[in-house]
């Protein structure tokens, strides 16, 4: 082949090499492709790429045709150090005749190598490693070969540096970042991901790219085991972007943490999923705070309600036992205030729960008609002031909802009805069954609500300013809480009223 034809062929190969190593996604691919190209273009028998590790020792990153014994023997014996400036390529045409390679000569020759050369890999001006070429026979290095090798060295350095810069960037991020290939194995993890997974470094974690799964026990927010296939990373490998809140327990270290994992698929040129890119954001502190808040609300609830219950019990006993009219009257006052205190505590705790998003409904299938009847008769048992009528009978209707909370809504509406109709003695409850929902109405014949206030009744802490409110004031939370409960059931709550005539509160609950 003529020399110009050879040059053109070489140029083409060089371009191909450049293209291939630029496209490689993982550094390991880069090294592999580089060695293949080096072998082809420089027609070597063996080759290797070495880089400095964090301790400044040159280590083999990839190799072609070298035995483990050889590598072990020569690793770390480079004349070049990290601070070596402007190293020139080192060429040894005939090992047997080389005076300088004293202690390693035997090792090299027994590997079958008779000629070698190494070329620097540079980042800006500092040395990051070298690539080596070996021949099994003595070899004269031509200037063209040296130039070709130098150019290849520059290409390889460029790609390695580009990768290292992006790795450094990824390692500086506080969130964990991992990349999985189509089999689910890890091809990249940043330092944060490795350390929070209990490994000492990213390299250590990547040693077993598939084993990381076995190390953790995964649970969702409800405490149920998280299926591996539902993990955002796995879903991304099926082409779906998603995120999930996961609790993971490191079985080796015994610690539990909460993370939000967000995963996106990466596609190749043909549009097929190639990898999944996962961002792991630790939310353990936030979850623990929520847990403490929840526990506080429960403790506060118990601690406040217990003495109130005792007070109420003894006050009721006394009220029943005393004969003297004055004492009876005072005790009825005491009982009223205790009830008021009890309601205030309940309201505060409910609002606390609502505001920390903890108003979780415990849903079950129950007979709403029966509940309405029970609440109405409870009121009769306790407050004899009004007659509560359930109009049109009590339908046997089952709905799926939080029985206790709906009970709370009914009690709130009934107690408001009683409170705001001191001169009337009747309250009517109706239940209307529609195809999609059930509507319950509580009607009183009391003082009604003004047009101005009617828009505001469901606001927290809203209280109408009038005589009645002043003698029975609460925190103004009952309707707010009721509206939250109804809305959490995906129902609606509304009111109809005419000043001086009365008020009807309606709420609907879905029936499927």
């Amino acid at each position, binding site marked *: 082949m003529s020399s110009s034809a050879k040059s053109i062929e070489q140029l083409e190969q060089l371009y191909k090499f450049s293209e291939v190593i630029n496209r490689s996604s993982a550094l390991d691919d880069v090294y592999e492709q580089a060695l293949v190209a080096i072998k082809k273009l420089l027609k070597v028998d063996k080759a290797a790429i070495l880089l400095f590790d964090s301790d400044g020792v040159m280590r083999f990153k990839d190799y072609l045709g070298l035995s483990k014994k050889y590598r072990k023997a020569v690793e770390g014996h480079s004349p070049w150090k990290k601070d070596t400036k402007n190293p020139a390529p080192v060429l040894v045409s005939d090992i047997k005749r080389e005076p300088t390679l004293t202690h390693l000569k035997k090792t090299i020759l027994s590997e079958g190598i008779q000629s070698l050369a190494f070329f620097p890999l540079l980042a800006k001006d500092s040395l990051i490693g070298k690539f080596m070429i070996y021949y099994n026979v003595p070899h004269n290095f031509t200037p063209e070969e040296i130039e070709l090798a130098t150019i290849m060295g520059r290409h390889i350095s460029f790609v390695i540096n580009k990768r290292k810069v992006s790795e450094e960037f990824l390692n500086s991020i506080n969130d964990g970042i991992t990349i999985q290939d189509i089999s689910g194995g890890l091809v990249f993890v940043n330092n944060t991901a490795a350390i929070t997974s209990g490994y000492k470094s990213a390299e250590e974690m990547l040693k077993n790219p598939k084993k990381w799964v076995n190390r953790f026990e995964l649970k969702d927010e409800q405490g149920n085991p998280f299926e591996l296939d539902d993990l955002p990373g796995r879903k991304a490998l099926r082409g779906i972007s998603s995120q999930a809140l996961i609790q993971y327990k490191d079985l080796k270290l015994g610690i539990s943490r909460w993370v939000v994992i967000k995963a996106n698929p990466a596609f190749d040129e043909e549009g097929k999923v190639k990898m999944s890119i996962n961002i792991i954001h630790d939310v353990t502190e936030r979850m623990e705070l929520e847990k403490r808040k929840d526990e506080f609300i429960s403790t506060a*609830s118990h601690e406040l309600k217990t003495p109130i219950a005792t007070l109420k019990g003894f006050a009721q006993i006394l009220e029943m036992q005393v004969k003297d009219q004055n004492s009876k009257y005072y005790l009825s006052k005491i009982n009223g205030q205790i009830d008021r205190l009890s309601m205030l505590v309940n309201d505060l705790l409910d609002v606390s729960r609502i505001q920390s998003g903890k108003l979780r409904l415990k849903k079950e299938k129950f007979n709403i008609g029966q509940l309405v009847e029970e609440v109405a008769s409870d009121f009769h048992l306790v407050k004899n002031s009004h007659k509560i009528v359930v109009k049109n009978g009590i339908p046997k209707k089952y709905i799926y909802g939080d029985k206790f909370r709906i009970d709370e809504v009914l009690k709130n509406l009934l107690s408001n009805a009683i409170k705001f109709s001191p001169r009337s003695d009747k309250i009517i409850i109706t239940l209307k069954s529609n195809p999609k929902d059930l509507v319950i109405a509580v009607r009183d014949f009391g003082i009604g609500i003004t047009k101005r206030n009617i828009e505001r009744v469901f606001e927290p802490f809203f209280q109408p300013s009038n005589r009645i409110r002043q003698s029975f004031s609460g925190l103004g939370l009952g309707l707010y809480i009721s509206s939250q409960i109804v809305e959490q059931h995906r129902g609606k709550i509304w009111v109809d009223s005419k000043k001086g005539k009365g008020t009807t509160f309606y709420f609907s609950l879905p029936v499927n």
Partner: protein
Amino acid sequence: MKKILVCDDDDGISEVIKVILEGAGYNVGVLNNGRSIQKKITQFKPNLVLLDLWMPGIDGKEITKILKKNKNFSKIPIIVVSALNDTRKIALDCGADDFLSKPFEMNSLLFMVKKYTS
């Protein structure tokens, strides 16, 4: 005379329940922790147990489950008493017969006790 066993770590609550129930003609036994409840039930042989859910150390829900699983005690009705309203469903799921929330109306307590002892 029907016998009621009240199990609650708070003395105020157990005392007020005792006074109310004794006034209505029941024989009331009181226990302030859940650990010795099986022994007490065996000795006292109550017709009904009123059990507080939230006691330090012993989980009222566990006690309910244990009592209901035991042949000797499973027939005795258990009413769970608790200040925490949203434990109602959990209590019933553990096998309790009914749930009374604290603070309670005297009449509500009497009504429920009568219901489960007749």
